[in-house]
């Protein structure tokens, strides 16, 4: 996980001055990370792309509020997390809740015979993990995703989510406990 590089700051400064090309560079630099974060928070690819884009747009609009006290990606993550969570709430309100597991596999299983069984199992496992994450209560989900997927430190998570360190510890732990329950079938094998 990179810190706020001088380059980031320069791009931020230029973006703030209206240099959209500079902002586009920032987008390209962080798009994969923000997208993956959104994917694990909202649970499906299409919405993840949408949410991640929203996050960048919000970042652009809010650039003036970024003072460089925190790392740029921390700041960006906090926007993305907020976007993802509010998106989920709105989606739940619309009763169109879609679980991650409903995302079609990357490749259509047109010829199941040609796909090694091991690969099928691996996919099922991945989908089960993603679905379990998607089902977590949002506070837990954010903590788990930020720590175990995005690799943030506790302190960074506290900053991103805007809660105290102790809360992060508690949410992370409880999230993992919930996942442990959900993923029992997969815990027998060696990690």
């Amino acid at each position, binding site marked *: 996980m990179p810190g706020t590089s001088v380059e980031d700051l320069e791009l931020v400064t230029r973006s703030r001055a*209206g240099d*959209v*090309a500079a*902002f*586009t560079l920032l*987008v*390209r630099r962080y*798009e*994969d990370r*923000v*997208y*993956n974060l959104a*994917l*694990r928070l909202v649970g499906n*690819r*299409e919405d*993840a*792309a*949408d949410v*991640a*884009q*929203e996050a*960048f*747009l919000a970042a*652009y*609009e809010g650039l*003036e509020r970024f003072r460089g006290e925190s790392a740029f990606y921390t700041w960006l993550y906090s926007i993305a997390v907020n976007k993802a969570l509010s998106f989920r709430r*709105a989606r739940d*309100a*619309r*009763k169109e809740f879609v679980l991650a597991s409903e*995302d*079609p596999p*990357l490749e259509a299983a047109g010829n199941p015979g040609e796909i090694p069984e091991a690969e099928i199992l691996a996919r099922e*496992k*991945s989908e089960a*993990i*993603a679905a379990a*994450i998607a089902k977590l209560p949002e506070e837990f989900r954010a903590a*788990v995703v930020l*720590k*175990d*997927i995005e690799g943030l430190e*506790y302190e960074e998570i506290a900053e991103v989510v805007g809660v105290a360190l102790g809360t992060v*510890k508690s949410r*992370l*732990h409880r999230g*993992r*406990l919930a*996942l*442990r329950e959900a*993923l*029992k079938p*997969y*815990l027998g*094998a*060696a*990690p």
Partner: protein
Amino acid sequence: MECQKCKVLLSEYLDGRLEDSEAAAVSSHIAECLECRTFAEELERTVALVSGLDREGAPADFAQGVAARLERRILLEAEPKAPRRKVITTWRFATIGGAVAASVLVGFYFITSQGNKVRPLSVLNTAVTPPATAGNEIVVQEKGEGAAGAPASKVTAAKEAAAEKKAEIADRDALESRRLAGRGVAEAQPRETAARGDKREEAAASLGYVAKDAKTAQAGAARQVPAAAPAAEPTPPNAVASDMAPAQATDAAYDRYVPAASPATAPALARPREETELAARAGEEAIVKAPLVETYYYEGSAIIAGDTFVNAIPVAAGAGAFSYGDAKAGGRAQLAVSKPVTADDVQAAATAHGITVVKLSESEAVFDVALDKDVLAAVTTTLGKSKGISAAKEVAGPVSGSGGAVAGGTAVTTHMGLDEPQEGSRQYKARTAATLGTTVSALASEMKKGGKDQDGEFFTAAIPATAGAKERQLVRFIFLNRLTQPASAGATKPATPPAK
């Protein structure tokens, strides 16, 4: 150490976040306690499973999507030059994901009654029915009171399409050369020549503008005059083109829509939202930044999608800048509806709440009530129930910029698609195209290329009296990003798996 205490500490233990003494205590406990050891191992494997999930990269066109949406935002931030008295806000709701076909959107807008006349912003005057392809959209439209005499554009969609096609062909070369040049038309350059004049003529022609009177009438005052319908009897595009005075007249015609803000007088960028809202509440002129596309489905609107009444979230008095000002002035609320809710349903719902329907048609209803959250919510809820639609869910919260609106000013937010008959859209497109020195069709086609979002065929724009500074940004944006980056955009992302 007790088991319970141990289990609580396990995450921190695994993450190496415990003090040495605590870690040692946990360590020795799990060495002795089978249950806790198993627990710890399972937790560790759980973390490993989660951490081991494949990372997925953003879709290849991700940055372009951001770019396209950012363009709209930039447009939305344009700030008006002169204070206006009236507020007219119209919202159009376009495609909402997959719910469109069977969706009913209930939008509303309002007109201040302060003063007698409503500026005849012609986007509101349209008598043109949306094309058949727009059947999945709900269009919130209304004629302003003072606009009764203002002729609506009679330019048909077909005519426009034909003209745009012509313009597109004519313009292709010019656009291509810009692309090859790889640089933007950064600023409007007065000395830029006949070529640009031609482009403007084409844009004007494609929009059915008549610029005959432009030289004399439009120069000064017209700038402050609302963009009334361009001509009582629009001449066929071809005739307009051949009839048109040279570039200067065309420019002047555009001045009605493109006030020539010099850098010195160009408006400052839009203020922060909070500040804006405060200003608006104080009755000052202000623009509410309007991420309409982002928020339309839960702010200031009601949506019935499929069989679910999603919500009815009218903008409450005091909740947002424009609604505040408007409600205070006493406005009118309008619902625009379509299948499966009919005009009869609306009438019944309104009657049930003792509300007078001022105007009612199959597609819209105007209520003679001040904009009021409860009223609108009640009506829309009744509507939903009348259709056997499940309960409404209200989402409270501040209006964080719904619709493009200027408190104490004039703004229109509209979606623009290639086939949009709305006058305001065409004005806007003409203005933008003129700024870019290109044609509407070429611009729209460029816009379309990047529009991957739910609203891809449209771009949204506020139409304040002036938008010079932001439009310059737009120019930079389009040409710096859209035209020079797409080629490399996908190529630099080899590792990204396609998102579906």
